[in-house]
């Protein structure tokens, strides 16, 4: 049974039909990527899975449980975490307070241990633990957003455009961390405009166009796919 099974969802933003009959699966231990241009509906899909938005049709099953319609704050304890688009760290709170918020639903006794694990993964955050998040660079904020999501010990980590607005060297760093998290056993659903990077780390990918899945395949196969190359890989 797939860890996450999205079946035939339709999501509207007001009058805009942003996601049309989308279905896909994420198996335990996989990295799955959803790629596509701006406005293809990628972020909307993630927000629907995490419970910020709701689908009018179909179903979303996570670890065998139908989670469609459950509000976001009740999904976190089930092992679902999302790193939102644009990072959305709490700019006026310190790095450590941001991380504490990530562990909001966990028992207080487990927080120090999780903090240490996140600091081991992101030493930069430890150096800046007392600093207000608004003073961090873009790359550091991305690390903070990822560390914050990891504080909830997610089984499935969803990342929305982690490379957005980052210098190429930082993009490499962020993707190294994604690979590391994956090796450590976290299942990952990655939404990216940087299709090259995303497909090179992904087990499988889904290509979205104006709210629909148009192509699917392994990461390696999609990298070689002529239409994908033409549309997203600059060749």
């Amino acid at each position, binding site marked *: 049974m797939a860890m996450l099974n999205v079946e035939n969802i339709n999501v509207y933003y007001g009058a805009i039909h942003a996601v049309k009959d989308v279905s896909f699966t994420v198996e335990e231990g996989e990295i799955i990527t959803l790629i596509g241009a701006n406005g293809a509906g990628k972020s909307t899909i993630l927000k629907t899975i995490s419970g910020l938005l709701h689908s009018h049709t179909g179903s979303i099953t996570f670890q065998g449980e139908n989670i469609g319609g459950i509000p*976001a*704050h009740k999904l976190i304890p089930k092992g679902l975490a*999302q790193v*939102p688009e644009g990072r959305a760290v*709490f700019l006026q*709170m310190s790095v450590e307070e941001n991380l*504490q*918020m990530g562990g*909001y639903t966990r028992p207080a006794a487990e927080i120090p241990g999780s903090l240490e694990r996140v600091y081991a993964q992101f030493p930069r955050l430890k150096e800046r633990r007392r600093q207000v998040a608004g003073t961090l660079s873009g790359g550091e904020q991305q690390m903070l957003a990822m560390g914050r999501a990891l504080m*909830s010990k997610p089984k499935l980590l969803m990342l929305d455009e982690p490379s957005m607005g980052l210098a190429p060297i930082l993009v490499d760093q962020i993707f190294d961390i994604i690979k590391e998290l994956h090796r450590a056993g976290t299942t990952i659903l990655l939404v990216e405009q940087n299709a090259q990077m995303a497909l090179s780390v992904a087990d499988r990918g889904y290509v979205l166009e104006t709210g629909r899945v148009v192509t699917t395949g392994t990461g390696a196969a999609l990298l070689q796919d002529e239409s994908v190359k033409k549309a997203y890989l600059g060749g």
Partner: protein
Amino acid sequence: MSFLNNLITGISLGSVYAIIALGYTMVYGIAKMLNFAHGDIIMVGAYVIFFATGSFGLNPIVGILLAVVVCTVLGVVIEGLAYKPLRQASSLAVLITAIGVSYFLQNAALLLWGADPKVFTSVIPEGSLPIEGVNITYVSLVTVLVCIIIMLALTWFTSKTKLGKAMRACSENKDAARLMGINVNRTISMTFAIGSALAAIASALLFSSYKNLIPTSGSLPGIKAFTAAVFGGIGSIPGAMLGGILLGIIETFAKVINTNISDAVVFAVLIIVLLVKPAGLLGKTIREKV
């Protein structure tokens, strides 16, 4: 010496405004709405204390505790019934609803308790500190002390406790807060509860100095405290304190010059601050996300 006496009166009045302004500013910070019924919660609190201590002869402390309970419940119920259904609505709809709730409370009070002014009995013993030349009443002293305690307690609460941090997270970014597992609706309710409890405390202090109680008694102090919150920077807790105290001092000195113009001066201050520094004295200029 009259300068010093006026300053003390001003700081004391300003402390009451500050406590009321905290309710406005905390609710604005998290729910991004102006709860114009906040002043009327004060009026309800004052009636509860009036009847508890006057008609039922209860100890003033018990009366205040009762008012805290009633106002807290009232604040949470108002939020749940009137504002929560409008979470996705335009801010104008919420504003009009808040004004409607304000009129509802005033008229309900009129119906229940009549239009005759009630004379509030001070919950704090009358009299002044035995200091030669300066007139510091016990009411002023207690008011300022309570204000300081509330300020320290709220600072501790928002910086150290889990719920306080969750409130700050919600006021910055609600969707991100939801993704942390924070129940945003419940956090907003808690904020209304705290603001309303503070309103009950403010009512005890305010009407211990200004004793006439009628159903519209909460309205003007409410609006002035709102002015104080904007003056200090709406959404900012230290801003509400600073704005409240400055406004109390300005109003008191304006009264010395001419009683009739003191309210005009207070609102002129609001207009000038908004022209010169739209975010208020301690307010942060919010960068719009693009």
